[in-house]
């Protein structure tokens, strides 16, 4: 049973992440009065890319070849370490010490994402194209400034929940009275800004274009093709879903099941998590349809806002 849960935990995020992207695209298409592609289109795209031959630049080194696998693996590891529908640490039956719990520490998660960004930026520089280099430069700029908001918002949750592990945090938060969760509302705003920045969404980056000179994420993966492009796209989708799940489960923890035993509990929790995630995804799509991308040097103001909000949330939560 535990082994099954272990595998479930490992696969659930990569299995559902393209759906999240598809959902956002569908909503955006509808808001532009288009029918839009099916929500399952990202799966087909990935499949198509895996079927294709690959072109690799002659200037690229092993960093370029290795990075997509590492980046993908990091997202799988983090995806397995966060609570999805149940806040329960899962270990293997025959190897109880082998658990995803250690990677669920919020600092470990932040630094694993930073490691992912590090290799993403390196592989952007590796081909020696001007696009890739500038994409990397901007990505590191955004990542360096976004980390503060991310850390402070999660720290506020951590202090309130009196735990450092995201799985335990979700469990602890459910027992707290409603007014104790007030600072989390501010922390949520900080987290959302960090989410948009880290996932290359509006108003920081435009995920839908290759033409804009200010692109960030797409510029870095411009030279990737075939399976490596598929891995990069898939990893980006995983990252978005992980952030969405963290946002809904940490800041709105009600309904997340605390055990894998009761079937009805799991059903309710699944419905709630799916519902909350859909609302958040819809919010992102709405934001992307109604506002323009910021000029690159206005992005730091936004990220600083996220940092300040995080500081306020933390200040309130430690004085409580």
């Amino acid at each position, binding site marked *: 049973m535990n082994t099954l849960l272990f595998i479930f935990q490992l696969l659930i995020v990569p299995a559902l992440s393209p759906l999240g992207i598809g959902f956002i695209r569908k909503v955006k298409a509808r808001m532009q009065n288009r029918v839009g592609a099916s929500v399952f289109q990202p799966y087909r795209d990935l499949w198509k890319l*895996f*079927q294709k*031959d*690959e*072109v*690799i*630049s*002659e*200037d*690229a*080194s092993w*960093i370029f070849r290795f990075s997509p696998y*590492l980046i993908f*693996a990091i997202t*799988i590891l983090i995806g*397995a370490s966060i609570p999805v529908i149940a806040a329960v640490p899962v270990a293997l039956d025959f190897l109880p010490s082998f658990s995803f719990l*250690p*990677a669920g520490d919020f600092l*470990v998660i932040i*630094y694993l994402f*930073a*490691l992912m*960004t*590090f290799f993403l*930026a*390196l592989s952007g*520089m*590796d*081909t*020696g*194209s*001007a696009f890739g*280099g*500038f994409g*990397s*430069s901007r990505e*590191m*700029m955004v*990542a*360096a*400034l976004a*980390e*503060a908001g991310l*850390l*402070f918002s999660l*720290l506020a949750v*951590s*202090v309130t929940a*009196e735990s*450092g*592990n995201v799985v*335990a945090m979700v469990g602890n938060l459910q027992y707290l009275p409603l007014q104790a969760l007030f600072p989390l509302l501010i922390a949520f705003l900080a987290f959302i800004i960090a989410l948009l920045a880290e996932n290359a969404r509006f108003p920081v980056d435009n995920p839908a274009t290759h033409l804009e000179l200010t692109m960030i994420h797409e510029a870095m993966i411009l*030279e990737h093709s*075939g399976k490596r492009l598929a891995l990069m796209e898939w990893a980006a989708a995983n990252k978005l879903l992980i952030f969405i799940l963290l946002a809904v489960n940490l800041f709105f923890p009600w309904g997340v099941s605390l055990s894998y035993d009761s079937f009805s509990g799991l059903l309710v929790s699944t419905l709630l998590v799916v519902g909350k995630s859909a609302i958040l995804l819809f919010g992102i799509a709405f934001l992307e349809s109604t506002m323009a991308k910021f000029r*690159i*040097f206005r992005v*730091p103001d936004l990220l600083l806002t996220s*940092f300040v909000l995080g*500081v306020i949330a933390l200040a309130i939560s*430690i004085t409580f």
Partner: protein
Amino acid sequence: MEFLLTPASVLLLFAFFFIGSVGAVFIERLFSDNGKMAGFWGHGFALLGSLLGLAISVSVLFFGQGIAFTLPTVFPNFLLDFRLDGIAAFFFGIISLVSALASIYGFGYQKHFYGKYRLGVFSFFYNAFIASLLLVPIANHALFFLLAWELMSVASYFLVVFENQKEENIKAGFLYFLMTHFGTVFVMIAFFLAYKATGSFLFDDWRAATGTITPLIQGIIFGAALIGFGTKAGIIPLHIWLPEAHPAAPSHVSALMSGVMVKTALFMLFRFFFDFFPGAPMEWGLVIILIGSLSALLGILYALSENDIKRLLAFSTVENVGIILLGLGAGVTFFSIGLESFALFSLAAALYHTLNHAIFKSLLFLGAGSVVEATGTRNMESYGGLIKLLPFTAGFFLVGSLAISAFPPFNGFASEWLTFQSLFIGMTSAEMIIKVVFFIAIGSLVFTSGLAAACFVKTFGATFLARPRTEEAKNAKEVSVFMLLPMGILALLSFLLGINATTVVASLIAIIASIGLIRPVTLQFPFSEFIQARADFAAILPLESIALLLGLVFLLSFGAIWFVTRSRKIVVGPTWDCGTPLGPRGEITSGSFSRSLVTIFRGILRPTRQSTVEYHDEDMRYFIKSQEIRTSMSDPYRKGIYQPIGVVLHFLASQARRIQSGNVNMYILYLFLTLIILLLWATHV
């Protein structure tokens, strides 16, 4: 084995360095082989001595038994008193380890100097430098310590100016000499005040005198020690010599200076605040934290804006010293408010980062040395594509970059994580002032770590990735095995110290507890669930499981994807060039990589920009003939602090010159007047 715990082994160690230094000078005279033998002799004995030092410190730490002995001298009040306790052995071990690896590196690096510079002289100062580095942590007498401290400064000065054909090295050396003596003055003030208060130069008597010193005197002692040792550690704004002097020295000496010499200053701060005069008021802890926050954040910003690879690494040392000071300051704060467990925890974080920084900074400096050796320049704008030409150097440098950017599962993450935890604990304190200061520190540390990642993406990317930007970079060759081996060992240590974090933390706590100051050897966290949870996680710090899981997931996904796509081809083609031929000018450079971050932080960094444009027709101004843009950073410390001080000093000196008339009769009058004044004073007292 038992020999290692005797005074004889310590004396033998210094004998090695003595033979290494003096012998090399003679050897150079005997053989006319461009100094090859002298270099091997010097580096060889330095290696022997360092290995013995490593063995001594390991056995002291392992058996938990110190070495203490005294050698008499002919001078009154001056004793050669040695004391190698747990904490000294820890620093002794770090110094020995890095010196041993640097000496191996030296075997390969020395061919740089054949025929150009005198390797006998180099070996003399190199051995003297390492010997004095090793003397500093074990000297147990203030005057003896000052002797070792001065020897360290002087020997390293001669190493900084060793390549004396370059004018900037002489300048850097002079600045270093000036600043280091500025620091030493304050160290002396601290020592003499302590002598006045305790009546002894022996550190042991200082330890015994705890509590008998008035708070005012103690405060002045702490302040002087902080300025004096802070200058050596490179805290901002006393850091200005560091980015000049560290890069000027030969690369393995840079590794020693940046990796371990700054640590001796931190060691003495630790001694002052926790060993000699424990029980500093809380405010000192907060001051140290604020200094640490400032140094960390500004250090990494300056590093980011730098294009000289060795200067960049030197600024990053300023940053890491700041991070270590955060842990140290948190320790002082906790200790002053009676939270000994937390103090122990924070100090463990600080010592862990000290060890880690010694490892990865030496690794990066040795790597930078190899790159400089291969290309002949320190300018990162001239590198590019070196990963294909120097594959091993690139691999080791990557490990160093990952470790210094604090990515799991490398060692930098473990210590930065612990530092974060001690700041989190302090943040939940009830006192408002502590809360605010720790808040600032957390904010500083999180920006620092984000910017450090950006900085090392830039360093690694601009140096090793994409295409070579110059002919020199195109013709670079991998360095010799002597130079690769120490880098390999350091890279391995970076990884091992990361995944064995649990063991390391437990040993560090035992070492700190061994000086007998902080009672509980096991940690107790009575405060809140939050702290308890952090402490529980810290007790396991499972970096090895994270490494294992990441490796496993990586292999699984790699295997699955390889299986699914095994029949797909890979075509190698040119990078997409948008129709313009790919040249070195199309790639991003180090300067342009950091440009956006520099622009954001322009309020602090104050970038300057000069452009000159020449037109074909000066009246029309449509067609540009040539255009030149120079960007640089202004140096607010020199402009704002050091230049005004220089002006004042110069003014005072020129006023004082008036009494120097050059007339002998005048000087005799001065003598006479002085005598009268002294006599009058003597009769009155």
